[in-house]
């Protein structure tokens, strides 16, 4: 049955397996996005002493399908005063970066001789930052396209916020790559194997901390959700959107959350590894390969839940506080962090 696999040339097998991986990974990510929305609603409800959506299917587990159907069936209304081209472009621009980032993330070790990463780029992290910085366009375009003041304010805020925190984010991961000596994400995971305290979160706690905070800001999650700021800006940059276009913004936010969690897991929490039972070595059997993927997904889900938890705990920053924290606290700390680790590495060498 699988004989045809062995008869493929190298180029053919690359294409075939890449397509399969892309398909499976995209499907998984979309599923995770839809259930992240449910998780958001349920966790929010529980924190507020409520129950949350529990009517569609057992324990409300079919809720995303009802939501999806609803957003597809709603009228796709385009207000008369918008700038049409950008208005149509923005939701796609908001959704895409989140999905593109997944390409370089190693979500498992091996599965039947295939490395469990779509593109094992040598410049994985640079690619990620390149893509992540595209994320701001969706929001800025939406704010500009809406041609009305609140979305515009949301878009402006968002661009200022994302530009400032991207710097801090970039600075925070530099020590990781000074330690790894490589920009390839698979190498970073290899670095974190062996021993209970191999994970970089123990070696670079400050980097981890800065990365997570900057990540919250990049994904526009509370306490950094100034682009949306429902109570100040009506609905923020997506005020004029409805139906599936609104849903795309919404899914984009969750896609970004999942990608940020995946990045954090890869860079600081050991990726698909666990420091015991030999789970930190690349898999040789199919079972262990699947187990590695499971470990990775479990870590990502835990982080997503943490992000949701934080959202329902912290109030929003004021805009000047946000800028102050970004430029006058996090960037200097990030720079100091680099210098300190550079000195440590130099002393060791």
């Amino acid at each position, binding site marked *: 049955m699988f004989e045809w696999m062995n008869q493929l040339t190298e180029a053919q097998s690359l294409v075939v397996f890449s397509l399969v991986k892309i398909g499976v990974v995209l499907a998984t990510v979309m599923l995770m996005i839809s259930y992240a929305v449910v998780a958001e609603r349920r*966790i929010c*409800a*529980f*924190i*507020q*002493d*409520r*129950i949350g959506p529990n009517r569609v299917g057992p324990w409300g587990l079919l809720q995303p399908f009802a939501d999806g159907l609803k957003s597809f069936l709603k009228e796709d209304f385009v207000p008369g005063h918008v700038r049409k081209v950008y208005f149509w472009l923005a939701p796609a621009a908001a959704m895409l970066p989140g999905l593109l980032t997944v390409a370089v993330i190693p979500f498992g070790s091996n599965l039947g001789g295939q490395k469990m990463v779509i593109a094992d780029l040598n410049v994985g992290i640079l690619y990620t930052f390149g893509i992540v910085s595209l994320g701001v366009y969706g929001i800025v375009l939406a704010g500009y396209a809406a041609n009305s003041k609140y979305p515009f304010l949301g878009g402006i805020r968002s661009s200022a916020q994302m530009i400032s925190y991207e710097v801090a984010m970039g600075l925070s991961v530099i020590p990781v790559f000074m330690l790894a000596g490589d920009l390839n994400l698979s190498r970073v995971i290899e670095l974190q194997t062996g021993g209970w305290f191999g994970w970089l979160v123990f070696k670079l706690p400050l980097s981890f901390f800065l990365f997570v905070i900057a990540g919250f800001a990049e994904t526009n999650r509370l306490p950094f959700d100034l682009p949306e700021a429902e109570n100040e800006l009506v609905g923020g940059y997506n005020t004029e959107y409805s139906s599936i276009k609104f849903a795309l913004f919404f899914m984009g936010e969750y896609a970004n959350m999942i990608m940020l969690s995946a990045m954090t897991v890869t860079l600081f929490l050991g990726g698909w590894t666990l420091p015991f039972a030999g789970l930190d070595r690349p898999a040789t059997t199919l079972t262990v390969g699947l187990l590695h993927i499971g470990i990775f997904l479990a870590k990502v889900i835990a982080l997503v839940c943490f992000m949701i*938890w*934080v959202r*329902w*705990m*912290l109030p929003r920053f004021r805009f000047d506080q946000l800028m102050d924290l970004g430029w006058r606290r996090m960037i200097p700390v990030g720079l100091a962090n680099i210098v300190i680790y550079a000195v440590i590495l130099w002393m060791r060498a």
Partner: protein
Amino acid sequence: MKIERTALTFWERLYLPAVIAGLKVTLRHFLRRKVTMQYPEERWVVPTGYRGAPYLVKDQEGRVKCVSCQLCEFVCPPKAIKILPPGPAVDPATGNVEKRPREFEINMLRCIFCGYCQEVCPEEAIFLMKDYSLTGKSRQEMVYGLEKLLELGGTHLDSIQKWKHK
């Protein structure tokens, strides 16, 4: 009065203690018993004396207490009550002494549950009961007739029993 602000320590200025405390609070609420009531399945138990929908009652012997005096119809602020007074002849089985309504309608879409009908009724024949969520699929369905009102009202245990000794 001037309140001195104590200077924050470095640890406090890091913002982290507040975050950790916040996480604790939200975690506590996460695990707490939920206050949500699953509405259509669970419902509030209303206290005695609650003024819900008005229904007609019968006395212990199954007689219709209403004598169709039309005072409730007259007093009803939203004009929800409609009565056709000349009732059927006295039913020998129940031995009804006075006249009774031929038709008695309360439009529950109009009714405001004010309780004037109960207050004005000289025969204590109409009472505001505990029903508070009335539903129907059409407007016509929400106009409750004599039969339905009597059925929903049930028997009222009256201490006076006006006609018992006549």
